[in-house]
């Protein structure tokens, strides 16, 4: 039986799988009414609606809704011209460019590398596989500041890797490439963990059938495997992009933070805050917030499709 329960104990999945509750037994208890579906509140005999609703709305309200509303409201109070002047300075535009460009590059690299790692972990048995599998989660637990510190130490001329990369002209520390490197590090678990369970659950029969029917390995890969894993790969890419756009802790160590060159938007927000230029910081933050929330919506839609297509392929 493949159901939500199995997915759940798939040891990697809970870390990143978005919570998408399905209709449960409680729904069938709802009395038929003429009210539109979305307005119906089911009268469950279970207690605790009031208490849990109070706690949840208090926390979500004070921590998520109010702060983000205040942020947007104080940006709005600048007026359209004021907002544009604060959010669209040359330095801010350059920072969006670096943020977006480095995040896109990192998301592409992370998706490609994540796909390879996920494939090997799901399909190739070898000694030490579980160890490698466990290491994939390190970026989720390791403080990003530690990652930034270590990466910059590794890729400078005196570092383990920099010692032979820098003479070749590859500067991993205090450079654009450095930003991409740490972003790949922080986003790798997302791209691996979204794709890995999908590869594990791939229908091997379909692959074998394709091979038996005379398809080449390449054709089998392109026609059978790619369509099956594509939604997961795209979701992983979107998650990596969202994670990279907001990342601060690791980038601040390695980028050198040169305005117009290696300064990302979150670093510019902090720089403006430290100059007490609240209006500018807020305006840039709202631009970044809009980008992140748009991506969140995209990810939610993708996840929804992903879970639906997973249901579709169930035996």
């Amino acid at each position: 039986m493949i159901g939500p329960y199995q997915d759940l104990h798939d040891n990697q999945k809970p870390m990143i799988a978005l919570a998408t509750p399905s209709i449960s037994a409680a729904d069938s208890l709802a009395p038929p009414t003429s009210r539109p579906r979305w307005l119906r509140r089911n009268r469950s005999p279970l207690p605790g609606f009031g208490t849990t609703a109070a706690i949840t709305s208090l926390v979500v309200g004070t921590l998520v809704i109010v702060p983000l509303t205040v942020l947007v409201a104080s940006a709005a109070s600048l007026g359209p011209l004021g907002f544009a002047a604060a959010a669209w300075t040359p330095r801010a535009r350059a920072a969006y460019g670096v943020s977006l460009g480095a995040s896109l590059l990192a998301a592409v690299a992370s998706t490609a590398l994540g796909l390879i790692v996920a494939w090997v972990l799901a399909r190739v048995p070898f000694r030490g596989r579980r160890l490698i599998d466990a290491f994939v989660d390190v970026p989720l637990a390791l403080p990003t500041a530690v990652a930034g510190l270590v990466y910059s130490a590794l890729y400078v001329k005196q570092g383990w890797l920099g010692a032979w990369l820098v003479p070749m002209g590859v500067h991993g520390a205090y450079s654009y490439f450095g930003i991409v490197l740490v972003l790949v590090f922080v986003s790798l678990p997302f791209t691996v963990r979204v794709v890995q369970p999908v590869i594990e659950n791939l229908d091997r029969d379909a692959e074998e059938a394709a091979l038996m029917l005379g398809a080449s390995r390449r054709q089998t890969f392109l026609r059978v495997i790619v369509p099956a894993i594509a939604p997961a790969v795209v979701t992983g890419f979107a998650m990596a992009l969202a994670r990279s756009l907001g990342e601060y802790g690791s980038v601040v160590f390695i980028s050198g933070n040169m305005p117009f060159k290696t300064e990302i938007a979150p670093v510019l927000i902090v720089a403006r805050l430290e100059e007490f230029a609240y209006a500018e910081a807020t305006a840039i933050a709202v631009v970044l917030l809009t980008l992140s929330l748009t991506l969140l919506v995209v990810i939610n839609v993708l996840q929804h499709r992903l879970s639906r297509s997973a249901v579709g392929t169930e035996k």
Partner: protein
Amino acid sequence: MAAAIGIVGLLIVVPLASVFHAALANGLSGWWAALAHDPDTRHAIALSLSVAPVAVAFNVVFGVAAAWLVTRFRFPGRALLVSLFDVPLSVSPVVAGLALVLIFGRQGLLGPTLAWLDWKVIFAWPGLVIATTFVTLPLVVREIIPVMEANGSDEELAAVTLGASGWQVFTRVTLPNIRWPLLHGIVLANARALGEFGAVYVVSGHIAGATDTMPLRVEKLFQDYRTPASMAVASVLAGLALVSLVVKVLIERKLAADHRELEAARSVGETV
């Protein structure tokens, strides 16, 4: 296979190993001196250890309540609420920190009120806790929701029918069913809470010996060109992260074992 080992090795294992290598460059005594003989570092360790558990506790209360709400009841706006839980994962921590400054800061919305009450939130412990709680908010709730969803509410309904109070239902029926995913969420939230940098950076004011947490201390020492000391603090954080991962793997094994048992029980039930 070689490709995967190469990728994970180069991106993850080598950096991790180099933290410990660099931290121990001056020997174990040098490492210990960097941690214990610097009052600001000692303070940062104590502060981190006092912020993270409180943030995790908030997360547990919220996570359990929110999961109960969205898995046991249907109501308008439920799907929207569930997607709101994920917002802190995609908002930049710096943006979140800034939003908190706009509310609680001296020029913020509640600034005058807080000044009158003589409460400090920004540049102080409460701000650190709020920022850390925000960043870790999704981690516990999203571990519990799928399990409560999958378990369904039959057992709880039976308990209610038999006259159990709400609290009894929760402690005797629900909690035993969700304890492993709950623990899993706690481990994740704790690791993230200890390591949070961006939101805490903005909210704390970065005052050595007062509001610097361990990750902020790592940065301060690095900026002061005291890389060995910085690496020493970083190695403590990396060690804590590794402990979290080991615990996480153990919990996942336990979960997988439970799951196999349940499947076996189910298949027996089906054949009977």
